[in-house]
């Protein structure tokens, strides 16, 4: 399963608009996507409540994992990009 760690780029952290963009992209992906802190149990990235409850803050490192799939690398790159971008800038 392809996975990658990424630093949260939005100054507000992983909620409001950044979270909503991530969740929509994860829900649109054709395979399950998980997100979480390295070494902790990951949560469903398509779940607004789970992502909010993660409470990811600006500058924090998190890991995104995409289930094996022909398109997995492209989906992973897209989600990593959303998390790394500062949507409040």
């Amino acid at each position, binding site marked *: 399963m392809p996975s990658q760690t990424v630093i949260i780029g939005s100054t507000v952290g992983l909620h409001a608009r950044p979270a909503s963009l991530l969740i929509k992209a994860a829900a649109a992906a054709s395979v399950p996507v998980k997100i979480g802190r390295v070494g902790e149990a990951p*949560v469903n990235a398509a779940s607004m409540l789970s992502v909010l409850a993660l409470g990811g803050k600006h500058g924090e490192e998190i890991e995104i994992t995409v289930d094996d799939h022909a398109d997995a690398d492209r989906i992973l790159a897209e989600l990593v990009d959303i998390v790394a971008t500062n949507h409040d800038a």
Partner: protein
Amino acid sequence: MTVSGIGVSPGIAVGPIRVIVHLSVDEPVSATPQEVFAALNAVADDLERRAETIELEVAKEVLGAQAMIARDPALVEAIGARLTDDISYSDVRPAIAEAFAGFRDALLSLGGYFAERVADLDEIADRTLAVLSGQETTGLRLTEPSIIVAQDLTPADTAALDLNFAKALVVAKGGPTSHTAIVARGLGIPAVVGAEGVMDLADGTRVLVDGREGIVIVDPTESDISGREVREETLRARAASVEGPGRLADQTPIALMANAGNGKDAVAAAAAGAEGIGLFRTELLFLDRDDEPSVDEQVELYRAVFDAMAGRRVVLRTLDAGSDKPVPFINAIHEDNPALGVRGWRLTRSANDVLNRQLDAVAAAAQASAADVWVMAPMIDVPAEAAEFAYRARERGIRHVGVMIETPAAAILADKVLAEVDFGSLGTNDLTQYVMAADRLDSRLSDLTSSWHPAVLRTIGIAASHAKTLARPLGVCGESAANPHLAAILVGLGVTSLSMAPSALAEVRGFLAQVDRATCERVANQVITLSSAEEAEAVALDILGA
């Protein structure tokens, strides 16, 4: 009878009230897992449909986010884990409550934005149960223009209301940042929140809502209505002129600035449209300290204010310790009469090095900043003190040097005092207590400590005429600048800038925009001929209007 609360969206509305009551589901709710999921979907569908049709942007976003929560796969999973059998459960309320509680607690523990989402979660849980039990929120169908009254309004309520018929919103709960307040301001209709007791009113009762004052008048009289409508209209017309730099009706510029004590204040001042900081009180950085802040530390604190005002003027006042603002490491000696003692610039007599180091820090901070920094000393009494301060400040490269005019001596001799410096600033709070010889902190003397007193206004007039002759800018940084009528009188006396709390700026700016210089001078010339503060206020009201 009146019900009072907090006015959160200004305006006047009169009409019958429509009381909205939420039905609570306190009976067991029987359902199969499939029915629960279908109810959640129905709630989500409904929220999405409303999000599409509503025009108000804030409501659209809230509804969209709520719909996402109702469709949340993790929530569905959590409910499914508690309703594992494909049977009709006799009561699904505990399972739903537990499933929501897991997320609820997680969000609450994060605080802030996350904790606010808890209200969305609760609302979805309630609505899901209402759908399952066949109940709906009542009162949402409006057939005539009404004043909406509720315990609290949820985003779904406001979305469901036909807001064309909503004349005002009044809720028993909530605060200035509640959903009700945001929606009302977005719609431009009056709103009062925290109006405890409003739910006791019967549906259809005719009331007046004053969203500025925050009150609800039951069965208002015609004079209640017309009086408040006229006042609101006047204030609105003024608010509409609140833009750009301060000026009189004849376009005479009067700089409107704000008082600040730290960087946070300066940011708020900039947001309120202040043209600069007319009084930066540096003693706030020294109070409650056991030792003197280092030069580096001071530079940092001063920079915070200067940086918030890049390109604008900041009038910094050097340490005004003593009297009612003692600084522990400076004002160690007991004084019998501290208001008349060693305070302000007089501290050079006892703590000379502290003031020199402050000037070093101010000069360094000013040099590194993009603000137009002016520096003045408080409690300057005689020309020699003004000359000494000017020498020390200019020696350090400070370009605009000034003094506070807050003693009768400095006002009377302003021709000599202001000749030594570049500008003056009237501290009307202290000037009033010194002219009237009445302690401004003693409430028994409050009738003697009004800045409206002609004795005070004449003294200001003396200083202002000297400033005019010397072509020195003369500001006011006391509380009197924040009173629109007094502001007009001060301008009429010859004052060229006013500095006040940021919250007072809009009203003063709006008021000054409708009077010309000739009127200001006329009212000023008249009030200084009177004998009492009360007469002065009455004459000002008569000439200037409310």
